[in-house]
Every structure is written in C-alpha cells, then in structure tokens.
C-alpha cells in the first residue's frame, strides 16, 4: 500500500487519496521553490562574495520584466492550488443525498454518537466499509472539532447549531478520532476510535446489544410525551403547522420570506419558535429551550425527517424504512435499505 511513504497517516476514506494528491502537489511546488531560492542564494553568495574590503559593485536598480515574471508565475501556480483546494473542499463538505445519517453530540470531554436504529456509542464509532456516512453534529457546551486523520476530515462542532461532514470508509480498521478544537482541561483526552467494519460484521454489530428502538420511534414517543402532537396534528389542521413531509421543503413565513426546513430551521423552531413563524399561524408555541437535551432534539429531528405524507404516523416506521435521509424529502421510502 502507501506504507512506503513516511509521515503520511493511513488512507481509509474515499477522499484521503485526493487530499494526499493535493498535498504532494504542494510539497512538490514548495520543494522546487525552496530549493530554487536556497540554490540561488547560495550560488550568488559564493559567486559574488566580497573579495576586498573596499569592493564596490556596480548598482543594479531592478528589472520590471523580471519582477513581472515572478509576480505572474507564482500567481498562476497559486490559482491552481486555489481551484484544486476549493473543489476538494466542496466534495468534503457537501454530503451526498444517499448518505446514512449518524448524529454526533460533543461535550466536555466526550463524543456521544447515535445511530438511526437507536444504537448509541461514546467515544467509539462503528461504520461499515463502502457506505457514505453523513455526520450531523452539535455541541452541548463549547466548540469542539471532529477530526479523523485517516479519513482526512474535520469539522467544528458548535453549540447552538448543526454542522455536518461526510465520509466513505474504504478500509476496515481502527482509526483515531480526535477533538481538534481546544475545549478545556481534558481536550487531549477527548478522543476515541472509529471502527470500520465489513458490511456483514457491521450488521452483526448492529444487531448485538439491547435494542432501544429506532431513533425515529424514540423521537415519536418524545413527540407525544412533550405534547407536540396536540397542535402539530397529522389528521386535521391543528393549531400548529402539520409536519408531514416538511423536511427540506420550503416554508412560507409570516412576513413573506421563504426558508428551507432543514435541520437548523427545525432546531430553531423547537428552541425559539417565534424566531421564524410560519405564515398563518399564531405565535402560541412555547419554547423548549432548556427542557430537552441535544440528543432528544436530534431524536425529534429524526422523527420529523421520517414522516412523509404517505405514511401514517400511528404505525411507527421500521428502522430500515427511514435509514437514509438527506434531501429526498417526500420520497424517503424509496432510497432505503443497504
């Protein structure tokens, strides 16, 4: 494999090779220019060393042509880096639509992870090889950063909002998970492992342990316990807007603008309902700020994502039925199943 190249971490994701390629390009350019500068300095320093104390060289004022040359050439090379780096960035931060959702909550000083089927982990993440995974992340306290060197991915995990990043593991193994944003006393202890498994092993792992019910069904129970259901009714028009098929759809607000009902909007509407009122509904919803945990919020979110218009919410969807999410919105049931 790539073991013969020293000082390169293991490559275990689809983007790792692309990041390394850009890195090698930059190393190449840097070595070239560093040697060029060092070589010229050394050569001139020896060639034109002072031979007598009174030596007075002829003045050279400069050359516009030469100077333009070393303005333009570095600029052109740097534009290659710019374009290459930007395209890679778009790849890493734009999750594909068919990715499997996993939710991450950071807190001083641990990572809490929830799988769609309800399985929870702390400082450990199990994922199958060859499957696109989208992480939706938030923090309970300060800023953290989710960093897996072997995947070449990193994303800050912020309190009060969701950030996301995706990856597709290519090689079974155990890889370091680090917190990369300084977060207080045990910052360097806030790490763990990402375990990449063959799909069959992963299935085995998923089915092991006690079942708590899927994330969506826990979310649905919460939806009832918190009495969300009494206003956001599915059968008839309730006092609040119906949530069926809401996710990733445009919503018309009081005041005329339109927003997309993404994770951030749903989160805000639960914690601060009056911030962006849906057109035609009175501002009567109480805030749930401080009453539910970040993990419960993510469960509610998963539930809301899972209810498409064709479904009857009375029958909780099976774990498989809402595995993938992403943009598909209404036709959620079609892109299921590994």
């Amino acid at each position, binding site marked *: 494999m790539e073991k013969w190249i020293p*000082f390169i*971490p293991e490559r275990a994701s689809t983007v790792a090779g*692309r*990041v390394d390629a*850009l*890195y090698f390009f*930059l190393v190449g350019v*840097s070595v070239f*220019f*560093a040697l060029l*500068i*060092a070589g010229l*300095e050394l050569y001139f*320093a020896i060639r*034109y*060393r*002072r031979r007598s104390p*009174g*030596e*007075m*060289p*002829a*003045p*050279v*004022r*400069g*050359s516009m042509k030469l*100077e333009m040359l070393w303005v333009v050439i*570095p600029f052109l090379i*740097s*534009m290659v*880096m*710019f374009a*290459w*780096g*930007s395209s*890679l*960035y778009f790849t*890493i*931060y734009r999750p594909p639509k068919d990715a499997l959702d996993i939710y991450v909550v950071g807190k*001083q000083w641990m990572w809490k992870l929830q799988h769609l089927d309800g399985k929870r982990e702390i400082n450990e993440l199990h994922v199958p090889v060859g499957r696109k995974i989208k992480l939706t992340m938030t923090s309970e*306290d*300060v*800023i953290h*950063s989710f*960093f897996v*060197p072997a995947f*070449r991915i*990193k*994303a*800050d995990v912020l*309190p009060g909002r969701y950030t996301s990043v995706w990856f597709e593991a290519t090689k079974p193994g155990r890889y*370091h998970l680090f917190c*990369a944003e*300084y977060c*207080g*006393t045990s*910052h*360097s*202890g806030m790490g763990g492992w990402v375990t990449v498994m063959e799909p069959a092993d992963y299935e085995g792992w998923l089915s092991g342990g006690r079942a708590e019910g899927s994330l969506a069904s826990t979310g649905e129970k919460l939806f009832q316990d918190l009495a969300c259901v009494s206003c956001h009714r599915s059968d008839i028009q309730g006092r609040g807007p119906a949530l069926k098929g809401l996710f990733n759809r445009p919503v018309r607000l009081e005041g005329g603008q339109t927003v997309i009902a993404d994770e951030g909007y749903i989160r805000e509407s639960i914690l601060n309902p009056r911030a962006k009122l849906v057109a035609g509904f009175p501002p009567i919803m109480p805030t749930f700020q401080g009453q539910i945990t970040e993990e419960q919020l993510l469960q509610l979110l998963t539930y809301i994502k899972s209810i498409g218009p064709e479904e009857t919410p009375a029958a909780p969807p099976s774990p498989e039925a809402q595995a993938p999410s992403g943009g598909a919105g209404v036709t959620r049931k079609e892109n299921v199943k590994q």
Partner: protein
Amino acid sequence: MIPKQPRTHYLNISYGFKSWLFTTDHKRIGLLYLVSITLFFFVGGAFATIIRLELATPQGDLVQAETYNKLFTMHGVMMIFFFLIPAVPAVLGNFLIPLMIGAKDVAFPRLNLLSWYIFNLGALFTIYAVVSGGVDTGWTFYTPYSTTYSNTHVLATGVGIFITGFSSILTGLNFIVTIHMMRAPGMNWFRLPLFVWAHYATSLIQVLGTPVIAITVLLLAFERVVRIGIFDPALGGDPVLFQHLFWFYSHPAVYIMVLPAMGVVSELVAAFTRKSIFGYDLVAFASIAIAVFGFLVWGHHLFVSGQSVYAGMIFSFLSYAVAIPSAVKVFNWTATLYKGSVSYQTPMLYAFGFIGLFTIGGLTGLFLAAMGLDIHLTDTYFVVAHFHYIMVGGTIMAYLGGLHYWWPKISGRMYPEGWAKLGALIVFVGFNLTFFPQFLLGYMGMPRRYHAYPEEFQVLNVMSSAGASILAVGYILPMVYLIWSMRYGPIASSNPWPATGLEWQTSSPPPTENFEEIPVVTWEAYEFAGQE
C-alpha cells in the same frame, strides 16, 4: 585608525533612573522597550521550555492538564502581545526611524514615552493573571469557552491585552505622523529606506486593526461579567462571531510582526551586498499591498467552522493574493545578491536565515490556504510549525539580525563577531530541528494544544524537544555577549560596515539630537557608489 566615541552622546548625557524613566528621547525609549520585551521573551520562552519537556513523552506526566493548558496560553499571550508585536517596531523602529529620516525625534516624544508606560501597565495585568493562577483559553480566547466555561483569569489577561493595544495604536500613530512630517529636506518618499516603508505599512495596521481587538476583548468581558449574550448561544449569541472579530485583528497582526522584520532584512541585504535592493519600488509597494490585503483574509482561519463555502472561496483566493507580495520580496532580495559584494557578517547570516525560514513558512501557508487540504491540516501541529516559521523563523531572526547590525549605533561598541556567528548558526539549526518535525506531526494528524498524545507521535516530538534545547542556547548566547560588549566590546566607528542610510552618518552612539545639523538629502536610498 582606532575609532573614538564622541564625548557626549545620548547614553552618557545624563545618568540615573529618572533620566531614563522620564526621557523623551526616542533612542532611550527604544532601549526601555528592549528591556521590557527581553524580559517577556524569556518568560514566554520559559513556558515553551516546560511545554517541550512535557511533550517529550506521550503521557501527560510532567505537569497536569490544567497547568499545560495555562502554559501554552501564557506562552502565546506573552510572545505575541508582549514580544513579537512590539519587538521590531517598538525597539528598532523607535530607535531608527527618526535617525533614518533625518529627524531629531519622533513627532510626539511624550506620547512615545506614554506608550511605553501603557505597554508596561498592560503587561502588569497580564503578569498578575499569570502569578495569580494563569489563564487557560489559548491565546485565541475562543468563545464560549472563554466567556462561560473557563474559570481562570480571563479578565485580567483581557484587560492587559486591551491596555497594551493602546500602546501599539499610539506608536503606530506616532510613526505615521513622524514619517509624513519629519523627513529631512530632500528625503522624499522614494529615498526612504525600505525599513521606513515597512514601518509605515505596519503602523497603518496598528492604527486600523488594534481597535478591533480592543472592542472584541471588551465584548468578551461584557459577556463574561454581565452575561449579555454576544458569543454564547446559550445566551442568544453567536460563537463564530468572536472568531471573525478576533481574526480580523489577529491575522493582520501577523503582518505587524512580519512587515517590520522584512524591513530589517531589506536593510541587511543592501548593506551586506553593497547594492540597492533590486526593484526598490516594488518592494516598497509590496509592504503596502500586504498591509491592505492582510485585512481581507481573516476568514481563512474559519474554513472548518461551518462558514459558507462561497465565503471560504473568497478568503482562500485573497490568501493566495496576499502571498504574492511576500514572494516578490523574497525574489527581490535574492536578485539583490546578483553581482553584489556579499559579506557574511553576523547580521547577513541572520538575513539568510530569515529568507530561508520565511520562505518555508510562506510556502506552507499555501497548504493552509488550499481549503480542501486545510480541513485536514488546521488545528494540527502543521499550523503550529507554519506560524513558528513565520513568527520565530521570520520575525525573531530579523530582529536578532537587526539588533546586531545596529548594535554599534545603539551601544557604540562592536559585538564579538565569532560568538555572534556561532549564535546565529545555533539558532538556525535549533530552530529547524524544533519546528520542522512539527510539519510532519501535523500531517500525520497530531492535533495542537494536546497535553498527551498517541505513542506513534513520540519520535518526532522528542526531536522537536531536543531542537528546542539547542534553540534556547542560541537565544541566551546573544543576550550574554551583547551585554558583555556594552563594556568590553571594541569601540565602533560611526559607520562600521560601511552602510548607507542617515543613521550611519552620525556618530555612534548618536547625540541626543541625533545630528549635529539636520542633513540635506541629495541621493537615493542605498547609493553605495557615492561613498569612499
């Protein structure tokens, strides 16, 4: 002929503490800063020493995690706000700008002294924070950790930085007015030494940028004390807003550290090749371009913070744009050597060191400006290595080179050349051994600000720690022989190298009024041919 010192000069015209503490002589004020920042440099260096000792083993075994976090925080705060930012401008800039432009003093001599007092007052608060238990937020003070979660002395440190900022603003203001109003007859803008151009650009940043960090620190203090929600989302604030404000100052602040250093290197390269800097105009404008573009790149510190990808692209593009004037300077210095008369005295060795290390620092900046690569590299040791190459490999090399170059003017004595060359060599070797392995550690994935780390990173960390001990020797050595030379060094002539520049046309050390009579300038910068 053995050079003789003038009978009276700025150093011996009066004696006693009062004559220094109430001086308005820009040269003496420069030396007051020299004393202050040298003290802070060694305090900050002591913190670094403990950090490197801790990192010699993977386990966190020398100090506790809390202590370690305070050490790297205080190392950063001390070195950046109390050493690197004032180093070249406040010491060498203060001493030299009036001399170089043919003035008797800066435009506002008493304001200049006040700046030094303000600087020390700010330092006092920060030192109070250190001795009363320290601060553990990192020098970046990211919220909401700094406003809500840290229970260390964030406020005292913040007040210290707030106050010290005014010293920086006032010094910048003083330089701008001085350079505009106090130039000797005939000293037009394009006859100014590039050192002065660099300081002009730096002063613009100091005056325009520093108020932003002052406001930011103030907002931080409001949120911490009065719990007004500005940054903490639990109070309705935006945690990333802090990063925007912080880097709006702190990225240009990197240029506050580097631009004057580039100015020093231009002087050194010209003097030790006996040639005008190749493409004087472009190098002068490059300083201004860096100062302007430097204000527009702060968002490259936020590529993984969830910032809009399109905003990221603009910041990435501008970061490449700002790299070009820096590259131009490196090429122009190199071209200056061509058909020059290169001598290898100590200041020139430091200049060579600067060009080499700054080039590596600059090139690795290109890695971090490439967004897709920055995702992997940011917040790792790669970043630590990169900015140490710029700020230590760049600024400190130039500062030491400048200190040696102008030492005869400052002290009236020559430093011991042999020891000095040895010192420069030790610094260069120690520096590379300390920081080069950190690039590799960073790409391998070691995050920064880690008290303990996985075992596979140990070998490179041990190399880094070993290098740090060499580097420490390299920094202590000049302090010892420079102090020694003040008494025992050979008497310096007024122009020992010889070099151009008005500062070399007055005696060493200069009289309090700088010149017997105000010079009239009829020649261009770096015109060696007219000399003997």
